[in-house]
């Protein structure tokens, strides 16, 4: 195993009584990366996270952390920490109590002012200084999410596992937290394994993305690779909109409406502020989406022609 790989899955499968949740997944996660597991709900991404944390045992295959197979280790002996989807903060403890919780269990732990400094430092990192004596029930959703984060990163895990940590936040906040989380990850240098079903989230934050479907890995790559060079129809469709013209994939933003080219009828025009989304129907009945400048004024039923750049084509 290469030294820069911190976490590795080797042909990991997980079968439950009624279905196979994860099928033969092999994955290498580089140290210090922001790595996302992206896929629709029920695709097995959370099961993978739970196998890494130690809450589920793989049916077959191995999980390696820092060059060591950790299959046999219980959760409390694995140097990974989790930010749970619902945060799972201890309601009977204060913010301080929650963040301190894991410190006494660290092998190298010695009671002292060191702990207090570390807790204060982490609380500052996540902008929760001054809230340390609050209970979780007295915090907003965003603050709770930051407590969950602080509680995990204070232990300096080899990998931080994040299970859809933004899904409980309102959409306004979610975009802001994205960049905060990304900044925090860069600052700390901790490896993040981020599970999400939101392609925009994965694209905007990740160094690398692994796209999953029905328990299997579809593709692993950088956001650009995954978006521009999807290796399967599933990946192409899951990451943003995709037109399929004679079996060739073309993104809406690569389609331009011109005076010459393929003939079509406009079926729908949506004004979206920074651009207009145009839907057209070609003779064969397929619907093609395109993006036009916001100033354009197409009307439903209008006959138009469209074309696209050959280099933007996706052949699968």
């Amino acid at each position, binding site marked *: 195993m290469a030294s820069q790989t911190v976490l590795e899955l080797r042909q990991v499968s997980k079968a439950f009584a009624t279905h196979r949740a994860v099928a033969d997944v092999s994955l290498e996660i580089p140290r210090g990366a922001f790595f996302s597991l992206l896929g629709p709900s029920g695709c097995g991404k959370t099961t993978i996270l739970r196998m890494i*944390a*130690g*809450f589920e045992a793989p049916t077959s295959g191995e999980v390696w952390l820092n060059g060591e197979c950790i299959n046999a280790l*219980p*959760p*409390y002996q694995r140097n990974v*920490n*989790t930010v*749970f989807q*619902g945060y*799972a*903060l*201890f*309601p*009977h403890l204060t913010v301080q109590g929650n963040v301190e*919780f*894991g410190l006494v*269990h*660290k092998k190298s732990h010695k009671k002292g002012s060191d702990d207090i400094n570390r807790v204060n430092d982490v609380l500052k990192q996540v902008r929760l200084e001054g809230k340390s004596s609050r209970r979780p029930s007295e915090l907003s959703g965003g603050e709770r999410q930051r407590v969950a984060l602080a*509680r*995990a990163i204070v*232990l300096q895990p080899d990998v931080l596992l994040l299970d859809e940590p933004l899904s409980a936040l309102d959409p306004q906040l979610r975009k802001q937290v994205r960049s905060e989380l990304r900044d925090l990850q860069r600052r700390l240098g901790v490896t993040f394994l981020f599970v999400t079903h939101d392609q925009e989230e994965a694209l905007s934050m990740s160094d690398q993305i692994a796209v999953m479907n029905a328990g299997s890995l579809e593709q692993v790559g950088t956001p650009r690779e995954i978006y521009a060079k999807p290796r399967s129809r599933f990946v192409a469709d899951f990451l943003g909109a995709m037109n399929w013209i004679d079996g060739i994939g073309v993104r809406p933003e690569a389609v331009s409406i011109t005076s010459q080219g393929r003939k079509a009828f406009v079926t729908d025009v949506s004004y979206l502020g920074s651009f207009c989304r145009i839907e057209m129907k070609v003779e064969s009945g397929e619907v093609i989406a395109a993006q036009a400048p916001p100033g354009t004024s197409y009307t439903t039923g209008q006959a138009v022609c469209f074309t696209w750049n050959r280099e933007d084509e996706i052949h699968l």
Partner: protein
Amino acid sequence: MKLRNAFLTPTAILMAVTMLAPLAIILVYSFLTRGAYGGVEAPWTIENYSHLWDPVYAAIIFRSLWIAAVATALCLILGFPLALFIARSGTRKNLYLGLVILPFWTSFLIRTYAWMFILRDTGIVNSVLQSLGLIREPLPLLYNNGAVILGLVYGFLPFMVLPLYATLERLDPSLLEAAADLGARPWDTLVRVILPLCAPGIRAGAILTFVPCLGTYLTSDLLGGSKTVLIGNLVQNQFTASRDWPFGAALSLALMAIAIGLLFSVRRRGEELL
């Protein structure tokens, strides 16, 4: 009158007649003088209450408190793992809960007699041990504090298990995963997460067990014999053999005062009484 108040009327009348009125009578009796053949006579006195401080009676009250405390502690120690097991047993929950409640389907008196048959000198335990040659003389299993505690634990364990189950069942399993994730071993998780979050259930179970144990009369009478007199037996004695109704009334009210005092002392601010 609102409809729901109308339906409440029978209960209210029943409570007034069967609870408040007898309590009032007991209160009045406790300040009167004993009659020669039972009953009460004038004049008014507080002597019945000063009797409570006699060393003989104080010892009985103290023994009652001590036995009830031991029985409650044992119920907690035995009931907690059981409640945790039931709360974690998925679709079998109702079956196990049914088994916990099953003893209530027969009379408490009969079940206590059954213990006498098990524990007495010629009982099952002693005769089995004797026939195996492990003991020669029967072990003194009956008519002591141990037998009373055993009977109380057996009788009131469900009152501990049910409230514990109710809080454990509501406990979010992801909190236990979070504790393990943060490095807590199962024992640490129990002490640092499960027990603090189950404190309301522990308090409720302790009250529901301790109060009836403190006032027990049947268990101590049948399994304790004459050596283990508790407050309940003393009260009964005053109304029968001793024919001292006023002192019996004072004892009953003292028992109630202890129970109510404990109820308030374990209550947390802002928490329901039970």
